[in-house]
């Protein structure tokens, strides 16, 4: 059974209720993230997820995911199997997160790229041994950030589906198909397919091929924005914006119009002085004209959905 650190008693009870279900075994019901539409209802067997558990009796976990979603439950299953301490970091402030990592000697953190981008900048946490990134597109910009903040950590970038579980793992933004993974993963016309339930399933995720075995996941087809017939990847543009000094995070989206279909817009949260004209000037140096956000809003914060990802609905 896990040892849970959470000061809110009702939240502690709710997490422990899930932990007890895990301890008993059987099935747990989830909803998918709903990043691109209505959340789907999925059932997973604790036994099946437990097949992927690794032995690590000394791990201390930072739980960053909603404990009712599969990503959070996977952390609880891993921790439960090893009787590990789990420190709840879900929806905590940046200060609480930093303090918890230090005070409780957290060694393992599994989180979305957005979590790391929003909560870390120049801090250093040398005791963290494992960082697992998942749940959304992970760029080398986030991996570079994580390497600096957690210099002694092994980094894993995981591609997973709620319906299936973990599909692929990498230490960078590039995934490579091995002999083993090629049996269940293939790329067709730049779409990622995964074999489960007796058939090949189009995940809806679009990839950019590097060679016949390696690729980068660039995002869901449904999040691509069509500007005058050109498909624009909002994640790529967000990455270009987020590496600017004084930008804390951003959300790129399309605004419909009858002339070009969409134009690109961005909500940008900043820390310090940075004006729209400067942002556009910098982006024009690296983006194609139709990729440059035409409408930019400087905002105080950007809404996330229940799984800690930027809400695109």
């Amino acid at each position, binding site marked *: 059974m896990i040892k849970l650190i959470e000061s809110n008693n009702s939240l502690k009870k709710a997490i422990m209720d899930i932990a007890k279900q895990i301890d008993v075994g059987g099935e747990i019901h989830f909803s998918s993230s709903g990043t691109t539409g209505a959340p789907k209802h999925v059932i997973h067997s604790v036994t099946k997820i437990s097949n992927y558990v690794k032995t690590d009796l000394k791990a201390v976990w930072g739980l960053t995911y909603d404990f009712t979603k599969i990503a959070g439950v996977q952390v609880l299953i891993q921790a439960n199997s090893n009787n590990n301490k789990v420190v709840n970091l879900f929806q905590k402030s940046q200060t609480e997160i930093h303090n918890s990592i230090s005070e409780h000697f957290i060694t393992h953190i599994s989180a979305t790229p957005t979590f790391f981008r929003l909560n870390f900048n120049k801090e250093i946490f040398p005791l963290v041994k494992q960082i697992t990134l998942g749940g959304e597109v992970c760029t080398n910009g986030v991996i570079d950030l994580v390497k600096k903040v957690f210099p002694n950590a092994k980094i894993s970038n995981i591609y997973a589906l709620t319906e299936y579980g973990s599909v692929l793992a990498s230490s960078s933004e590039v995934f490579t198909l091995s002999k083993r993974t090629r049996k269940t993963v293939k790329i067709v016309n730049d779409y990622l397919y995964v074999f489960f339930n007796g058939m090949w399933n189009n995940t809806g995720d679009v990839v950019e091929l590097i060679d016949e075995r390696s690729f980068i996941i660039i995002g869901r087809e449904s999040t691509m924005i069509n500007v005058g017939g050109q498909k624009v990847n909002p994640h790529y543009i967000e990455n270009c914006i987020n590496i600017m000094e004084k930008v804390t995070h951003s959300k790129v989206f399309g605004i419909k*119009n009858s002339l070009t279909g969409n134009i690109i817009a961005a909500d940008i949260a900043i820390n310090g002085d940075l004006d729209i004209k400067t942002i556009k000037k910098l982006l024009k140096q690296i983006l194609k004209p139709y990729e440059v956000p035409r409408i930019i809003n400087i905002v105080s914060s950007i809404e996330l959905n229940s799984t800690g990802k930027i809400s695109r609905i």
Partner: protein
Amino acid sequence: MKEEDLLIIINEILEEDCEDSLKELKPSYNLREDVGFDSLSLAQLTVKIESVYGIDIFADGIINTVQEIYDKVNRK
């Protein structure tokens, strides 16, 4: 919509694109040749006008001049 209102909107777009702003806006001005807009700037213009006036000026077809914008918006 008055000339000064449209001039403010157009100059916002020009300044963000690091172009020189206009001092006046003649009704006969062509949006591409005289104002200097490309299709993306025109799309930005239509989005900005729609957000203020609730009208998609390109909904019924292409618009070429400043006067046509006034006609569309002030006809509402």
